[in-house]
Structure formats: C-alpha cells, structure tokens
C-alpha cells in the first residue's frame, strides 16, 4: 500500500459493510466522496460538508464519524459501515423499520446519518432515555420532521432490542 500522494493517487484498502474495498484516490479526498463516487454507496449524503449536519455520518471502526471530515487515507485499514450495510438480505434493520413506522423520515436526506447515529447510541446504551437520545443525535440535523418522530422511532427500536 502506497501512503503518499505527491501528484498521484494512491491505493487505499479498507472494509466497507463487511467487504474489502480497494480504491485509487488522492490521499486528501474526503471519505464521503470516495464512498459515493468510487464505490457507488450513495446512501451516505452530503448536507453541509463541514461537520455541522451529520448527514454524512458513517461508522468507522465502530465509532460514529462525519465522513465529510475524513481524508480517505486516514480510513485505510478501517472497518466502515454505511447505511447500505444495515439492511440484511433485503430485510430492514430494526431502526429502519421503526423509522418507517413512526414517520422518522420525510425527505430522507438526514435519515442515513440519523440511523447510524442511533445504531452507535444503542450499542452504548441499549435502552436510552429521551434525554440520551437527544444527546446521541444532537449532531444530526433534520429540516423536515421536527425530531419528535425520530426520537420516538429510536426509543421504540431500543424497546425492541435493536442493540442485540
């Protein structure tokens, strides 16, 4: 693996949704762009491009991060999960199901990031209080729902044991 990019792309390998991916990219390309454009994983959205909105959130080595702020070289060797990695054989994950039932998604731009933030939260706190849900999702902005439906969807997913 080459780790320098003077006037040149380098080869970067990481795991995405359980599969090994190797891309040729400039070291300073944003992980967000590589996921969307090189790997076709367009579920990860770009809102602000500066860390404020959370619509580009993914899990990197189990940790919630904003992929618009990650130079792709820093992701080499990492284990990345995007929204595409949550559904299994065409079946929705518990959070995806509760978002659907509770009206947690309208236009859908914030939804992938919200759901990954919620996955991250439920792994740390399987049955979060409303306050903990608010804190866990505070880096994810939504212009449509007014948040209540999202918070209820996450609380319900906790009750259904989404974390297990």
């Amino acid at each position: 693996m080459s780790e320098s990019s003077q006037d040149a792309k380098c080869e970067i390998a990481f795991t995405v949704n359980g599969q090994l991916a190797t891309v040729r990219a400039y070291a300073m390309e944003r992980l967000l762009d590589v996921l969307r454009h090189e790997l076709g994983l367009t579920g990860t959205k770009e809102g602000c491009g500066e860390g404020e909105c959370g619509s580009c959130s993914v899990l990197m080595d189990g940790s919630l991060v904003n992929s618009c702020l990650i130079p792709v070289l820093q992701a080499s060797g990492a284990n990345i999960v995007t929204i595409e990695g949550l559904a299994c054989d065409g079946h929705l994950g518990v959070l995806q199901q509760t978002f659907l039932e509770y009206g947690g998604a309208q236009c859908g731009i914030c939804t992938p990031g919200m759901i990954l933030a919620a996955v991250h939260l439920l792994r740390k706190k399987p049955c979060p209080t409303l306050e903990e849900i608010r804190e866990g999702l505070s880096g994810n902005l939504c212009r449509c729902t007014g948040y209540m439906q999202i918070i209820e969807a996450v609380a319900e997913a906790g009750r259904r044991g989404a974390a297990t």
Partner: protein
Amino acid sequence: MRARPSDYELVIPHTLPAVLSLLGQEPGVWLPIAGGTDVMVQYAAGKLGRRKLVSIWNLPELRRIEVFAAEIQIGAGCTYTDLSEHEVVNREFTLLSRAARWTGGIANQNRGTIGGNIVNASPAADSLPALLVYEAELLLVSSRGERRVPYTGFHIDYRKTQIAPDELIRAICLKRRFSEYYAHARKVGARNAQAIAKVCLAALGRLADGVVEDIRLAMGSVAPVPLRLTGTERIVKGNRIDSWLVQLARTTATAEVQPIDDIRSSARYRAAVAGNLVAEYLEQLERSSN
C-alpha cells in the same frame, strides 16, 4: 472555493519519532492533522494554507491517559469521547469532562482531540478555560527533545501560540489536587451541542471557614485568547461572599474582559454575561458550604 484534493499531500508515518523527524526536516512545511475537525473544515472552504499534511490521528504515543499519584497526563491525541469516558477525568476534572460533552455532536467528540483544540487556539474553544483553571502544563515534543511549559501564557495572541513549527503537543498534565474544590462550568450559546459559545466559564473555588481560600476563573469568547480573570480573582480571594462582594466581582469581571462584536454576539452583551456568570458562580460557591 472548494479545495482540489490533487493539490494536497497527506502522509501517515505511524510512529511519533517518524512524524517528528518529518516536522524537523522541513519546519513549518508540514501541517499535523489529528481528528481533522478544524483542518478539514478549513480545507473544505479552500482556506487551508499548507499543502503538505502529516496525520497524527490515533498515534498510540498520543492517545493514552496516564494516571500518576500526583498528576494525570492526557495524550494530546485523546478525543473528547476518550476524556468523557475516562474514570479519573470524570471524577477529578469535571470541568474538562463537561466541556468534552459540550463540544459538538457525538461524531465530533469521536474525532476532535484536546491537542487540536489547544493548537487551533480559538478564543471560543470549550476545553481551554478548564485547562487554565487547572493550571495545566504541556509536554511539547520535537526531534530536538521534550520541554514542559505552563499552559498559562501558551496563547500569545489571537490564534498565536508558543508552539514551534517542528513541535507537537505530546500530553497535557493536570495536578490531582482539585477534588476538594467546588467546580462549575457554564456555556452560554444559542444551544449547547454544536453551537460555538457566546461566552463560556470554567470556575474552581474553595472556602475555609466561610472565607474564599482559593478561586480560579477563566472564560472563553471574551478576549483574543482564552482568559483567566486574575483581577476578579484577587478581589474575591481572602474574603467572605456577601452581596457586596458579588456585586464588586460582577463589575470587575465586566471590566476585565475584552470581548468583541461578531456574528454570534455583541461585546456589551458578552461583558454583561461575563459579570453575571461570575456572580452566579460566587452565589453557588457560597451556598455550597451550607
């Protein structure tokens, strides 16, 4: 205008000595990038001056918290999440763990580092007033060796620090002698998470027989650098807290800060808030002894 990735270089040397030797060979050429939560924002806006970056993210030498009998040494590469989940930090340095939980959303706390907060040197940064009142010391390391400097005075002017171009912060040292103090932190902003503070306060104080034996007050967003309110501290120290002292401290603090007008707030509002926060703290400190 957005930056073009092909114009930039980024390397990951993987060990601290390798990073330091690179910084030492061409001082001022390479920009360290840790969690990137400040650097990548500047990059996205096309405002990143330097074209060569060296990653220090997740360097093991920078990402550990060492607990000794008399002090703890927090690696500069520790994230806000590392801080807020650490038992000793949570128990003995509540001002720091509180600030860590205020710094942006969870994704930001998983990437943003304490070292990045210090060197980025925003006067609004949330953890810096806490480091001032704890009278932190910094371990600065370069290929020339290591030096230990007081954090007080590290910020020379707006976004200027004492760090040399070939140096990194390795660790932040905090003396373990504040568990008897009454600690208080407040952030006044549009909202807590994410929002950059209009004014934030970190305060430590201790009473003995009703008299203020020690008091430390520091604020963000009220001066070109994070500010310790030494003048106000002098007025308060050695006295009993009564309404007269509270009022005097309020006016002293209001005069001592040097805030500016900006998009988030006005100088007059900030000065008034600074005075109110000090008054509020003294009243709480007084009540804490009853």
